[in-house]
């Protein structure tokens, strides 16, 4: 059983194809592991019956020679994705017992390729958070612990459940979403691989919206190749999403393992921020050395507006969220609170239904869009956003990809940063820039810190150039040879 769950997606697919084991066997092993891992709080809804039913159907298709690219592979689904007839909450009280009567395009793509759903994964409420502590279901506990310590650490957020589940071998891969770093930072905190593709690669249809112009779905996986396999299935043009890019989806896995000789890798000097732990600085240096050894040319680049990305993000994202979350009003679905009149019912519903961080962001978003503040805040942020995107355009004149740390720290203790919103927001300082610019970026586990916690390095590519990102990520993964696994304590 533990053998089956410790497989990579790639090797599991090979095993299924060669009939070394069945999908029902593989799925049953994962179902049992998921049950045993409840102390992690990674799943907010387990769907073992559905999983085994899907697995049996997969086995039938394999037997009939009709296997899809992910046939029989059990995955975890972030609770932000609507899955037909299976409760979706976005980890908020406000959705109550919402049962979507539709299937998101991304999960439909995965299931169409034969993937099996183990259940819905925990996350920050409406994907707003960097530590999973805003979830209405309580935080996910990072499977990793400080060497010799027993403190509960955050798996990062918002896709903390996805990252923890993959790190703890609860699933072969998981869907996730990234609005400011929500795939990459949890991947870095859990020793997993996570890629946020180019904005528009994955359809947003059926994914609960946080900030529409920034949200992108992507996978969290055990290896770069697994991430590539998953993204190939998830991505694709969708006429139901007006921002979906009408482009072909390449076989991303075919770029993993390719030579990176001659590629120019940019190192942005502005990412050397004050107070960054020395270990991260040295891991970054190590990453540069590995890529140089692999034949890359290293160039220093400047992204002068980097420090303004987070403040710009904290206008754009809350503004969009304040409007996107207006539909949670208790009228057509979800929680409806009591009140003396309609306005009170709205106000009480939303006060009781939304958690503190979501309320704070809705208020900020409402404020920056309100009369008299729009130009000073919202419009200004959109202009700064343009400046940030232009920084990248300039960088692409001298390099093919960028290498940066993923996060400014390793996983921290639960409760450690909840009192200081800005300290929490700073988690995303290296990741948020690519959401603003719409660029693909991946986090690859590259080492551990002195306390034995995983650290990630981020690679950023040109728009729609996931190919180069995967190639370089593959080279980095190979050089780093990161094999550590969290010691099982649950």
């Amino acid at each position: 059983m533990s053998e089956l769950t410790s497989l990579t997606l790639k090797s599991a697919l090979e095993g299924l194809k060669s009939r070394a084991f069945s999908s029902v066997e593989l799925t049953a092993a994962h179902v049992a592991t998921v049950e045993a891992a409840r102390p992690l709080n990674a799943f907010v809804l387990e769907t073992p019956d559905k999983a085994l039913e899907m697995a049996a159907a997969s086995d039938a298709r394999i037997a009939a020679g009709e296997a899809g690219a992910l046939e029989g592979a059990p995955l975890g689904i972030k609770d932000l994705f609507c899955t037909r007839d299976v409760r979706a909450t976005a980890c908020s009280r406000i959705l109550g017992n919402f049962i979507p009567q539709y299937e998101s395009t991304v999960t439909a793509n995965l299931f169409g390729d034969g993937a099996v759903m183990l259940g819905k994964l925990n996350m920050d409420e409406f994907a707003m958070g960097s530590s999973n502590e805003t979830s209405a279901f309580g935080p996910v506990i990072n499977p990793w612990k400080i060497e010799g310590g027993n403190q509960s650490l955050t798996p990062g957020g918002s896709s903390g459940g996805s990252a923890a589940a993959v790190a703890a071998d609860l699933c072969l891969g998981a869907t996730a979403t990234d609005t400011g770093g929500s795939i990459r930072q949890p991947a870095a905190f859990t020793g997993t691989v996570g890629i946020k593709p180019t904005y528009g690669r994955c359809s947003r249809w059926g994914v609960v919206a946080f900030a529409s112009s920034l949200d992108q779905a992507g996978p969290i996986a055990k290896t770069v190749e697994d991430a590539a396999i998953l993204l190939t299935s998830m991505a694709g043009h969708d006429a139901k999403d007006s921002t979906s890019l009408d482009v072909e989806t390449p076989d991303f896995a075919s770029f993993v393992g390719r030579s990176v000789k001659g590629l120019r890798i940019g190192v942005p000097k502005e990412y050397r921020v004050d107070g960054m732990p020395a270990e991260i600085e040295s891991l970054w240096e190590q990453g540069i050395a590995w890529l140089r050894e692999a034949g890359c040319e290293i160039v220093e680049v400047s992204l002068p507006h980097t420090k303004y990305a987070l403040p710009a993000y904290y206008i754009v994202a809350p503004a969009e969220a304040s409007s996107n979350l207006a539909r949670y009003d208790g009228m057509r679905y979800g929680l409806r609170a009591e009140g003396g009149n309609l306005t009170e019912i709205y106000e009480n519903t939303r006060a009781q239904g939304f958690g503190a961080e979501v309320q704070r962001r809705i208020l900020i978003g409402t404020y920056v869009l309100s009369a008299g503040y729009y130009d000073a805040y919202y419009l200004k942020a959109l202009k700064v956003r343009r400046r940030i995107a232009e920084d990248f355009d300039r960088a692409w004149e001298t390099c093919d990809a960028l290498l940066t740390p993923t996060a400014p720290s390793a996983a921290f203790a639960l409760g450690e940063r909840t009192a200081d919103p800005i300290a929490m927001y700073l988690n995303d300082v290296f990741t948020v820039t690519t959401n603003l610019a719409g660029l693909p970026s991946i986090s690859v586990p590259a080492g551990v810190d002195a306390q034995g916690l995983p650290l990630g390095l981020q690679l950023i590519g040109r728009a729609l150039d996931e190919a180069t990102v995967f190639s370089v990520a593959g080279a980095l993964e190979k050089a780093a040879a990161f094999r550590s696994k969290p010691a099982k304590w649950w």
Partner: protein
Amino acid sequence: MSEVSGTYTIKGRTGDWELVMGLEIHAQVASKSKLFSGAAVGFGAGPNEQVSLVDAAMPGMLPVLNRFCVEQAIRTGLGLQAQINLKSRFDRKNYFYPDLPQGYQISQFEFPIVGEGEVLVERDDGSSFIVRIERLHLEQDAGKSIHDLDPNATYVDLNRSGTALMEIVSRPDIRAPEEAAAYVKKIRAILVTLGTCDGDMEKGNLRADVNVSVCRPGAYEKFRATGDFGHLGNRCEIKNVNSYRYIQQAIEYEARRQIEILEDGGSIFQETRLFDPTKGETRSMRSKEDAMDYRYFPDPDLLPLVIDPAWVEAIKATLPELPDAKKARLQSQYGLSAYDAGVLTGDGDLAAFFEAAAAGRDAKLVANWTINDLSGSLARDGLTIASSPIPPSDIADLVKLIETDVISSKIARVVFEHMWAGEGAPAAIVEKRGLVQVTDTGAIEAVVDRLIAANPGQAEAVKAKPQALGWFVGQVMKEMAGKANPAAVNAILKARLGV
């Protein structure tokens, strides 16, 4: 500008007041599916039957724009002689209401698809004035709240939610209540001619928001000269008025209300009001403390709308003849008066009916019969020209009978009544009912001679006072059951009486 809306003066206790109006007309696009979803648009479906998951604003649902609706907006813009903006954008207008599922309306705020244009509006007397169009934009309609099915709850039907509307915004160029109605009438005629909206006001497919303010004489001219709204009074917006009569009533009531407040030393607060047709009053929709702040911003689910100029040209090539052009042509081609041509073009179907009937006939006569007798009968029986029981060919035949002296105009009225009653073609009615006009001078002379002999006193009177001839004409017509040719009767009488 030469032709401007005529001023309408209200005498107050403290002096004269004038009105200033700008209108926002919401016209439902005649599309099969909604602006941003594939759900059907229509009337009469059961509750929430024409609702998609997008229209119900389920989590994660996204809008996709309907090409046909964009085309209709461009078409309408061209019909309003307006600027087509090749790049426009959709914005969100945020507010909470149970029939607004998303919590925002997708509309166009900063960059509408159609910019400035102008419309020539006819008054009833045939004169006209110009109303400048500020913009036309596309937006979603809301759903419907039903308040009278349950005393303790409101029922919401989202069938209408997401339906495409064109909002046509005028400049404050309208100065009198009846001119506001005339403006709406003209916009409706243009939309119906273009086929971009069915113009059905009863179903709410065309409705107007009327912005009303009052000012002292002279202030408006200062506003027009400077563009400074400070010269005008604060305005109130009366929402969703859906008949010409209500538009006038609402304006008249609202103007008097505002004047009373001002004359009592109060001031007008900009607000949204509703017109209650049963009471003939407007009332405030929401309290002042709830002042709206819609927080418009670009909809991040949508990208800029970019229109290929070739598309605009292609649409231009398919435009039908618009009411102004049609009016001019009817005048020159058929020799109609401005008034008749104006009435006929006020309704595209009416003009088409006229043209079908007028071919080869006396066009003025055809116009008279179409505008007066036929339209009058249709209105009386609640019918439209499209559902007229009398086809154009029968009106043409009726006029032909008059032209060829088979019947008189007077008899023609009798024939028309039989036609209206469904008795068939006019010639057959004339035949069957023996209504053929008597033009045989011998028969008329016999009657004339007999009447003169029987009424010597009257005959003397006519010789002294020729206007009295009418009495004899009446008597002859009476004797001959109205079938005598009136011209022949006159001529014979004059000859016999020597006048």
